[in-house]
């Protein structure tokens, strides 16, 4: 059995078919080609597949693809404004918060969602926003520095 759904990703409308058991991450990567959404643990533990769904960060590996019918999604590909990087993306470069880079799209999306909610997040709010994102390279210090820098630049 196959379903057809219509959804918006980064402002663009797509209509495509999927198997009903498909996870949203697989639909976004394999059917629609949004490879910026990373697949890692596939069980909701690591945050690499984080996207913004109707304004809220979620792990697309534990969301049913069919639940995206009618939804408005933002992936890491939709965060820059044309060639101008989002301040949080630029801050990751400036502070050196990227090493292997596999976790980076998930962190960028979680942090963009945070900065959309609050302009000047407290240390506690930052910690909560990325508590579901794992980075095995950086040790997090530079990621925290990047959020501070981005928040300063945005205010």
């Amino acid at each position: 059995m196959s379903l057809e759904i219509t959804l918006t990703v980064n402002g663009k409308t797509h209509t495509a078919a999927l198997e009903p058991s498909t996870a949203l991450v697989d639909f976004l990567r394999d059917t629609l080609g949004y490879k910026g959404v990373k697949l890692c643990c596939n069980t909701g533990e690591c945050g690499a597949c984080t996207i913004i769904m109707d304004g809220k960060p979620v792990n697309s590996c534990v969301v049913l693809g069919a639940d995206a019918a009618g939804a408005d999604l933002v992936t890491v590909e939709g965060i820059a404004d044309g060639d101008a990087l989002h301040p949080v993306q630029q801050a990751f470069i400036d502070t050196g918060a990227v090493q292997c880079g596999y976790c980076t799209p998930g962190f960028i999306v979680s942090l963009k969602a945070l900065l959309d909610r609050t302009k000047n997040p407290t240390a506690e709010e930052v910690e909560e926003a990325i508590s579901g994102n794992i980075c095995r390279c950086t040790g997090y210090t530079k990621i925290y520095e990047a959020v501070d820098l981005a928040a300063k630049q945005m205010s």
Partner: protein
Amino acid sequence: MDYFEPKTVSEALSLLDQHGEQAEVIAGGTDVMVDIKYKDEPGCLVNIKRIPDLNAIRESNGGVHIGPLATIHELEESDIVRERLPLLWQAAHQFASLQIRNTATIGGNICRASPSGETLAPLLVLEAEAEVTFSDGARTEPFGAFFKGPGQTSLGSRGLLTGISVPFPAAGNHAVYLKHAVRGPMDIAMVGVAVMATANADKSALDDVRVGLGAVAPTPIRAPKTEALVSGKALDAALLKEAGACSASESSPITDQRSSGEYRGWIVDALTRRGLAQCWQALTGKEVA
């Protein structure tokens, strides 16, 4: 695999009747999606998320009505939950990551019936009731009767949880939810302890003490002997020690990959003492002497 998106509760129930054991309900999907990937795919998936009005959180009949599709983050954001049901709010706040809290529903947490489910011991302590609906009618039942064993509830394969009613706890109560896990909120609880109490008029003793334990028995449980031991008494160091040991003796923890049963027993003891001491201090303004 067949797939359905019923638009009403009765449509969902007739699908469950029709497909029996083959059918699996999916709400947020944070448990079901992992099962689909790593265990067996069900014969048919009944996605209840398109049923309107099942995610309401509102005041009703001296308490709070919670729709099963309310997400854990919606509980956390709800003023009435934060102000009137702080025990449930604390459990929601210590539940996984923000991403999971935005997806996971309270109904899914309850119907999964994992003994470690974060909201379950708080619901037992709050003496909440489940509204369970079958194709031949609905009934309410206390959560103490709803949980039958790990993954087992009185819903069987044909029922839906359609509402949760939580009475407002007594005025002036204090409540604490303590979770013990390796990675803090991100991990499933090794032990979860919910404690709620009030103080008597001259603040010399605790009243109506309630203790709920998660992850240390086949279902979440209350600890009635511990509650009786402490209720009506002033909490001193000797009573606190006795209460911790009593609570541990009321649990029957298993050994699994997360921890040994023996260790879980020590944690029940420690967290029961900590929860009671925090209630005593908040309610009387005194340290445990």
